[in-house]
């Protein structure tokens, strides 16, 4: 195959063998950018692993204060889990619609994704204010400091994700799918949102279920 045939067949992205990047040349931006974002998400998960380790170490350091058994309500956690899982699923539906350049359904699914995220966040905030009102705030014991740091950090990520969803919806509304980076941004958003659900699986298992055994 000559050097001119390969681009015509779609086997290269414009690189040549002199670049040291192999015969295919560098990958296109639609591959490289989500890969870089995947690396960011993985490092974020490593950050969370440190918070999980802290929580696991301090989960019995209650200093005579309320324990996890007295504080956590499994019904609320089940609703939160359902809302976030459905939200993750609907985010996938938004990507399916976006791949087919269907603006209306992309916007509808993104809105449902965000709405379910808001439901999750409201329940979490209700739980936090309820606990702080009972005197079980982060300053009460090492266990509660670790709890609020871990779950609050996840909640902060969900808040950031909600802002991102709102921004994406506004951008889609004004720019539609015309610029090629719109699809890339949507892919990164979906990676972020799905990763938040993976972290929540670890939280509801380790903090809420094992904590109330």
């Amino acid at each position, binding site marked *: 195959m000559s050097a001119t045939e390969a681009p015509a067949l779609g086997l290269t992205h414009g690189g040549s063998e002199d670049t040291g990047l192999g015969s295919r040349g560098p990958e296109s931006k639609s591959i490289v950018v989500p890969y870089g974002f995947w690396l960011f998400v993985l490092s974020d998960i490593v950050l969370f692993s440190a918070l999980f380790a802290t929580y696991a*170490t301090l989960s019995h350091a209650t200093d005579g204060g309320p324990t996890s058994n007295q504080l956590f309500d*499994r019904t609320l956690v089940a609703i939160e889990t*359902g809302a976030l899982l459905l939200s993750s699923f609907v985010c996938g539906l938004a990507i399916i619609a976006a791949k087919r350049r269907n603006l209306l359904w992309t916007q509808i699914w993104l809105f449902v994704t965000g709405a379910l995220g808001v439901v999750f966040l409201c329940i979490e905030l209700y739980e936090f204010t309820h606990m702080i009102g009972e005197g079980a705030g982060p300053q009460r014991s090492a266990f509660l400091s670790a709890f609020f740091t871990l779950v609050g950090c996840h909640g902060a990520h969900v808040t950031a994700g909600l802002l991102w969803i709102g921004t994406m919806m506004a951008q889609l509304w004004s720019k539609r799918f015309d610029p090629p980076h719109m699809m890339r941004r949507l892919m990164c958003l979906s990676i972020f949102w799905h990763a938040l659900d993976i972290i929540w*699986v670890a939280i509801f*298992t380790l903090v809420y279920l*094992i904590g109330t055994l």
Partner: protein
Amino acid sequence: MSEREYDPLDVAPGEPHDSLLSESLSYIVGLGLALLLTGVSFWVASTESLWGPGVAVGLVVLAIAQMGVHLVFFLHITTGPDNTNNVLALAFGVLIVFLVMIGTIWIMYHLAANMGPMPEMTNLQMQRG
């Protein structure tokens, strides 16, 4: 490849899909599996009919299984050649996560066990008060 009969529904979750139905179906299967594993987790934690000390281990196994479901059906991690970089990065991330978590829990547990109760600390606080 061309000898095989083409089936629009027989596509792995991460592959490019032509049909709207098959692509949605992979998400629906993922949602169903995740809901099932979540339900089993909550049931395992609530029921009295299982051997108590094993429940926590079972919950951790269920959680790891559900993370696997999310990775395959929602994040589309596959074994395909174009996914090698993603899988390698994931493997490295998992390694670090396990080192940090198991290392911390192991060391801190033994540290706490070897320290025992600290009466002199409580005495200090009593004196100060």
